[in-house]
């Protein structure tokens, strides 16, 4: 019996898909429960404020202007991010651009620079740098690597024979792009754009420094200025609603399933287009992007540092680096552990449960760190010794970045041919044995990609870290915050440089063009 990937019989559909193994179901539900703690907290807080108070907050004039700013920012950033990401991917993968490997690494490394660091750098360079346009600029540069990697991976997956036969049947290059390449890249690119937009919704670093009132900044201001947690929760729920709309729209627009791969044979890559002299133009275009996203922050950090000749506190620097790495590592490990049941569920047993699960974790992904931090403060402070401990901090990272982890596990498991499962079962293995012996080993590279991505993101996290770290446990991000909060930018510079350097390691691994399987697993950062 052969079951094709998305074929589900009507009776199965009614039962919510193929029968899900009990253990998987229980563990998935358990993880989902853990991940929805922040959402539950928000609902309780918002309800506590009562209907009248809630509608007073919602009907403020400010809500409308904030809505326009937030949505406008998300859309424009997605647009520019797509332009930069897709054009870079095409130039790197499909043209005779000089040293494409270098440009790939440069294009990806921007992920290693936290948005608050690059914003600080641009403000240092141009003191009047602020406002909506500046935020579009910074956030587009910060998020473009997500699109670049997604677009690149899908370009690499398209079999050259498809394009060649399309050309042979008389289609022009742009027709091939539209009819062959785009439909196959669209799901991955749309998924990455969803992540970009959710990122914009939850970003605090850039918008606060540039004084752009998105919902995340307003929530933050409300917590800080009025200590009115209920009103802030109501505003945060608007953010959740906005995220829900985006997720739904993307779900509809994405189209076909994730793992539409035409065959199991090896894929032959397409021939590169000769740009002629224009290849130098293309190279300078990519170079300008790299300078803006990577060059400026590093240049400013180094000059700030040199100009004050701040003495480097080496022991502090080392302990902060160890703190950053250990917290991010535990967080990433925990995230992967949590993501395994949800990823398997989404890839293998798609049904109502998996759809709700995906929706729930994506919603959580749009929440500002301060909301997740406070939710875990409310809960964690009742847990005695676990409160302000490394495990709880790791847990907060796992909740914050679960969407990234689940996405990568789902895509990589979806790539494991179903027929392997059937063979395994016919040999007498039960579902769990099949998952352990067949699925997990094959999906490993994708899982590692997800791990690196969570690791990298957790290293830069600030708001939840501030609230949940063990007392005296100062990560690099905390040290940067500490120094900049008393205007000691020179002293903050070494911490920022080390953070960029440390975060560059997983980023580099993500972009490494020579890694086996990486071309496929790289797409896994998207959902």
């Amino acid at each position, binding site marked *: 019996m052969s079951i094709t990937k998305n074929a589900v019989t009507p009776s199965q559909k009614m039962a919510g898909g193929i029968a899900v193994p009990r253990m998987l179901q229980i563990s998935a539900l358990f993880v989902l429960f853990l991940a929805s703690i922040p959402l539950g907290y928000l609902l309780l807080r918002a309800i506590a404020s009562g209907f009248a108070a809630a509608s007073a907050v919602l009907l403020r004039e400010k809500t409308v202007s904030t809505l326009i700013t937030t949505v406008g920012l998300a859309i424009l950033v997605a647009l520019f991010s797509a332009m930069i990401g897709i054009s870079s991917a095409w130039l790197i993968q499909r043209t005779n651009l000089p040293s494409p490997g270098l440009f790939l690494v440069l294009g990806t490394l921007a992920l290693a620079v936290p948005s608050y660091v690059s914003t600080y750098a641009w403000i240092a360079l141009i003191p009047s740098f602020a406002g909506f346009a500046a935020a579009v600029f910074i956030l587009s540069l910060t998020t473009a690597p997500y699109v670049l990697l997604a677009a690149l991976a899908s370009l690499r997956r398209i079999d050259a024979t498809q394009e060649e036969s399309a050309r042979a049947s008389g289609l022009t290059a742009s027709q091939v792009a539209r009819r062959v390449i785009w439909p196959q890249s669209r799901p991955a690119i749309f998924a990455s754009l969803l992540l970009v937009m959710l990122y914009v919704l939850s970003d605090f670093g850039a918008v606060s420094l540039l004084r752009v009132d998105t919902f995340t900044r307003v929530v933050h201001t409300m917590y800080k200025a009025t200590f009115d947690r209920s009103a802030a929760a109501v505003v945060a729920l608007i953010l959740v609603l906005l995220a829900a709309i985006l997720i739904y729209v993307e779900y509809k627009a994405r189209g076909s399933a994730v793992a539409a791969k035409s065959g199991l044979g090896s894929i032959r890559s397409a021939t590169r287009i000769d740009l002629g002299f224009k290849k130098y133009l293309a190279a300078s275009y990519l170079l300008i992007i790299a300078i803006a996203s990577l060059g400026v922050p590093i240049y400013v950090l180094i000059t700030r540092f040199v100009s004050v000749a701040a003495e480097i506190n080496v022991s502090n620097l080392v302990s902060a680096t160890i703190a950053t790495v250990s917290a991010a590592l535990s967080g990433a490990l925990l995230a992967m552990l949590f993501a395994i049941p949800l990823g398997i569920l989404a890839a293998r047993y798609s049904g109502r449960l998996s759809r709700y699960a995906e929706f729930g974790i994506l919603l959580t992904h749009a929440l500002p760190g301060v909301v997740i931090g406070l939710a875990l403060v409310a809960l964690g402070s009742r847990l005695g010794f676990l409160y302000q401990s490394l495990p709880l901090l790791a847990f907060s990272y796992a909740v914050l970045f679960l969407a990234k982890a689940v996405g990568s596990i789902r895509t990589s498991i979806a790539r494991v041919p179903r027929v392997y499962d059937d063979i395994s079962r016919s040999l007498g293995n039960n579902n769990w044995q099949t998952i352990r012996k067949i699925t997990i080993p094959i999906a490993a590279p994708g899982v590692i990609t997800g791990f690196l991505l969570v690791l990298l993101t957790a290293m830069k996290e600030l708001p939840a870290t*501030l609230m949940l770290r063990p007392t005296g446990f100062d990560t690099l991000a905390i040290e940067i915050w500490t120094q900049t909060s008393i205007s000691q930018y020179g002293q903050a510079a070494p911490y920022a440089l080390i953070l960029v350097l440390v975060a560059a390691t997983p980023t580099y691994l993500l972009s490494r063009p020579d890694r086996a399987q990486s071309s496929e697993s790289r797409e896994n950062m998207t959902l």
Partner: protein
Amino acid sequence: MRKYLGLATVAALILSAAACGSENNQRVSEGESLSGTELTVYSGRSEEFIGPFFADFESATGINLNVRYGDSAELAAQLLEEGNNSPADIFISQDAGSLGAVAESGMLTTLDAEILNLAPTEYQAKSGAWVGLTARARVFAYDPVKVTELPDSIDDLLDPKWNGKIGIAPTNASFQAFVTALRQLRGEVAAESWLAGIAANNPVAYEKNSMIVEAINAGEIELGLVNHYYIYEVAEALGGEINVKNGFFAVGDPGNLINVSGAGILNTARNSAGAAELIKYLLSNESQNRFVSDTNEYSILLEVPSPQGLPTFADIGTPVVDLDALKDVRLTQEMLVRVGLL
């Protein structure tokens, strides 16, 4: 299988490490020697400035401090969320507003008269829930080359000649405290019309006080409303002299508000005796003199001289304001939104 086991082992290791690292939760009973006890401090004041005081306190008393540094308002929000489960013994805040918010929720204990008597009554909560530690004056920082005729009053800043030349930090707690005080002093209508006048002069908005000082130094603006110590911070951060000076308005002007940093002890403190010792230590003559010389803040104690080159409180002529009431900035924020500054 091995992969699962590996992950599970790591998780178990992390959990057990945390269990071992859990702190000593024993409550310190009265009359016991404080040496060797633990004291958990939530400090909204930065480590750079208050860390040395803590270190000396530890060696003088033998009390071990676990200090959690953060932003005052964020720590206050965290304390409110923790409620009775808070591990904190004492909350030290950069401003009266955050202390007022925690005090209002009933989480702070009334301080002993022994402590309250150390500081002047105008710099503590009426309820006795918190006490001021240091004072800071609102000033105008200005470019001494470009600004030759100094303003006498905040009302002078409404003159069109300042169009586009003033820097403010409308999102910052210190500016909002000033506006709240202005509402208290002049009433809602007058306060709003002053804000509207400032807004009409197209001020440049910054996130932080220090950015205003940097912008004056860089020649982008000529004058800014800040706390008095930022010019020293920025000068140190930029590694030398800067072209910015502090100016005071005329005696009694609302622009001369004095705000305080302060401390309160949690109801749920396990070591309230240790916390009281810490407050007394920070209010000692020695510590107060050190605040003045190290951080250029004003001492809360009248007998300690003002920072070098700055006028005394009496000379500044501070308006009389209820610092406890500075916590409610919601109406202030709504007003700032109405006039378009937020």
